[in-house]
């Protein structure tokens, strides 16, 4: 009907968002890709002859390679811990607690996710530091005589990462759990399935897309995290993001760009593999 004909052209709406994403995201990432094939000479001048030197350097320098592995490892531990906390949390809030308390309780747990990462990371200093509350508690309980060193270790980094990212892990998992059809669970129970069987055979497969989405929005940012290892990790707890920042601060932009591209390609590969198994944009956006 004529209703369709009078519609404004699509580009009226799509134009500015596309331009913004192109100018501020696509072009900058592409430019980073270009920089990664350049180099700097001894006077820190850019040399724009294409070379694979930066990539060669990354994969032949143990520090870079080792830090990449360590970051992936720490991000993996973080993701596993977040998921192990998020599943029971989502279950209890979404299924066990009376429904009128649900919204309040879940918002209360997601709320810290909106608080500045800087402030939350910094607050971990007050907990984990030498005079922090954790050491105070341990000494008060008589478990240790002198403050134990947690701050500036990889343990502190993982604790910090779990603290920062748990709200993000929780959102998609909670959405999946809350949507579970009670009658399916009751049917399984009536047919004699044990709690463990119900979880493994019924609940887990149904909330798996939510768990996968939770893993992705936890693993990817923690893998590239810069601030948490910077403030809590000290020397032993550095992560890949710190290498990128250091390369930039020492004016070796091509190296920093190549380090970034390696991280991005790893992330894209990961997203590609996961998206072959499930519709990611649906589980991420929760629609």
């Amino acid at each position: 009907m004529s209703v369709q004909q009078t519609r404004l052209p699509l580009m009226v709406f799509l134009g500015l968002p596309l331009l913004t994403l192109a100018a501020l995201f696509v072009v900058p990432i592409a430019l980073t890709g270009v920089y990664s094939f350049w180099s700097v000479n001894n006077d820190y001048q850019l040399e724009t002859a294409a070379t694979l030197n930066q990539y060669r350097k990354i994969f032949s320098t143990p520090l870079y390679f080792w830090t990449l592995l360590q970051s992936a490892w720490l991000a993996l531990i973080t993701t596993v811990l977040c998921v192990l906390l998020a599943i029971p949390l989502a279950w209890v809030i979404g299924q066990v607690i009376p429904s009128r308390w649900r919204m309040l309780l879940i918002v209360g747990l997601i709320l810290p996710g909106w608080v500045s990462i800087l402030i939350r990371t910094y607050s971990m200093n007050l907990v984990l530091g030498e005079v922090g509350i954790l050491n105070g508690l341990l000494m008060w309980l008589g478990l240790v005589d002198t403050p134990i060193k947690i701050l500036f270790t990889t343990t502190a980094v993982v604790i910090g990462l779990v603290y920062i990212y748990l709200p993000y892990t929780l959102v998609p998992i909670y959405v999946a759990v809350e949507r579970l059809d009670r009658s399916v669970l009751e049917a399984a129970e009536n047919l004699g399935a044990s709690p463990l069987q119900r979880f493994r055979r019924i609940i887990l497969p149904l909330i798996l897309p939510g768990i996968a989405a939770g893993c992705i929005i936890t693993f990817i940012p923690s893998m590239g995290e810069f601030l948490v290892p910077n403030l809590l990790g000290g020397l032993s707890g550095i992560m890949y993001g710190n290498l990128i920042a250091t390369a930039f601060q020492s004016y070796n932009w091509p190296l920093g760009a190549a380090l970034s591209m390696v991280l991005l390609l790893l992330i894209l590969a990961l997203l590609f593999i996961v998206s072959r198994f499930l519709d990611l944009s649906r589980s991420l956006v929760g629609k």
Partner: protein
Amino acid sequence: MSEKAYTKSAIAFVAVLYALVYLPIALVVLTSLNESTITTLPIENYSLKWFVQLFDNTKTLAALWTSIQLGVLSATAATAIGLLAALAIVRYDFRGRQAFMGLLTLPMIAPGIVLGISLLLTARSVGFNTGFLALFLGHTLLELPYCAFIIIASLARFDQSFEDAARGLGASELRVLWKVTLPNITPGILGALLFGFTISIGEFVVSFFLTSAGITTLPIRIYSIVKVGITPEINAVSTLILAVTILLTLTAVRLTWTKTQP
């Protein structure tokens, strides 16, 4: 395990997690009220002196002012652009719609450090100095996906037949948009503005690469002080940001929370 014991332990589990999540934040607030310069418990005397001293620190005040301006401007831009993107996604069926949504999601999951350095490289390459404008563009990009998806959810809930009715009565497209669509998604738009501002006021990594010598945001200012040593003043600034963030987020949640929850 009996049903009752199960429920009890489940509630205890949530309570413990709540305590763990809020303990560090509570520590920041408590220590900001400590009169002594030692930022640890126990607190001997409560006082607001660190908050009062903030107002004498011109550098921190300047950073606060920059952050507020940046938050307001970038949230406005991101909400406006996000609104356009949301209208395109919800109202139009076009080729590449799925790809566009994917592109829109990417800045949300890409590591902040990669976004930060790629924007820095681009700014330098086009002969553009870092500083307020660069920060504004960076923050707008970061907020855009969130603002767009909040408005998409809001638009998806709104009954399109109202728009068709207005069209049927002869209203022009722009008039439909202005008089019917926008008034009906006002909570979503306000929510997007508030969430955008919240992201901006707390943002760290991208700002870290885009600040210039003279222009600093509040989180960057806090970082530069924390790197040297923890001071009670930092707890006071952090408490201020915490209070503003929590207040704005709760308001935004109230505005945008789906009422159709079962």
